[in-house]
């Protein structure tokens, strides 16, 4: 098992404790594994020598329980309030979700438009270049060639930023998603 796999499993096993305590525990285990590896122990061995995830999690949770650091459970009143407030909070939540998803979709549409523009310019440019063979006279033929080359050139030039935006936004998507989820968790803990 690698260090990342161990920490991922531990994180999952430590769900019952507060986020702050979970992060502290993960930082501790990450540091211990790093220190072992610095001591010329191979990563797999360094992880294998640790206690199993379930045993480690059990100890941490037991200690957190003794110190009152478990995630607070909802009281009966809070559950009743949530149920009664459903007609109020659900439409609000839905609106926020729709706005967020629309904005997200809008960015993809903008990037998509950039792509389509770029491809259209290239296709159009090539078509105009071919059009020169059907032009009546030399001057219009050269005009076609020039216009076609400009269009195709613009298309190719636009393709580079379009590709950049696709990559950047595709990379940013999981990061944004994680931030959204974590913020929800912080709200729940607070």
């Amino acid at each position, binding site marked *: 098992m690698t260090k990342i796999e161990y920490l991922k499993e531990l994180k999952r096993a430590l769900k019952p404790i507060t986020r702050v305590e979970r992060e502290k*525990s993960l*930082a*501790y*285990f990450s*540091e*211990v594994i*790093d*220190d*072992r590896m*610095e*001591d010329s122990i191979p990563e797999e061995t360094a992880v294998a020598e*640790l*206690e199993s995830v379930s*045993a*480690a999690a059990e*100890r*941490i949770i*037991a*200690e957190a329980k003794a*110190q009152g650091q478990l995630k607070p459970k909802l009281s009966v009143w809070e559950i009743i309030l949530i149920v009664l407030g459903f007609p109020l909070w659900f439409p609000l939540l839905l609106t926020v979700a729709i706005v967020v998803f629309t904005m997200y979709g809008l960015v993809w549409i903008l990037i998509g438009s950039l792509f389509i523009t770029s491809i259209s310019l290239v296709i159009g440019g090539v078509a105009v270049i071919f059009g020169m063979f059907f032009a009546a006279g030399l001057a219009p033929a050269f005009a076609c060639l020039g216009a076609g080359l400009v269009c195709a050139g613009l298309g190719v030039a636009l393709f580079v930023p379009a590709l950049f935006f696709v990559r950047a936004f595709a990379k940013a998507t999981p990061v944004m998603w994680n931030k959204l989820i974590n913020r929800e968790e912080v709200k729940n803990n607070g």
Partner: protein
Amino acid sequence: MDIQLKRGVLEICVLSAMQNEDAYGYKIIKDLSPFMDVSESTLYPILKRLEQSGCVTEYSVEHNGRLRKYYRITETGLDRISEFLNDWDSVMRAYHFIKGDGNNDKN
């Protein structure tokens, strides 16, 4: 060994490991390993307890591009060690009594 007693002894051992200089998790485990078996997951709750009871303080230092947490023993921690050593004398007397060493002397 009784769990409570073992826990108490372990806490003192961990405190002793940082008596001469501030220590980090892995160093404490390495220092203690010739004397006892302590796993990382056993040490973590002990360090947390010691910190909460004011026996140690913690601070982070950058090390090889990452943060390493160091633990420093406080006056309270040092008092805990001397208290333990004082108490241990009476525990040892009880130990000899239980083993019957006193009776053997008479014979």
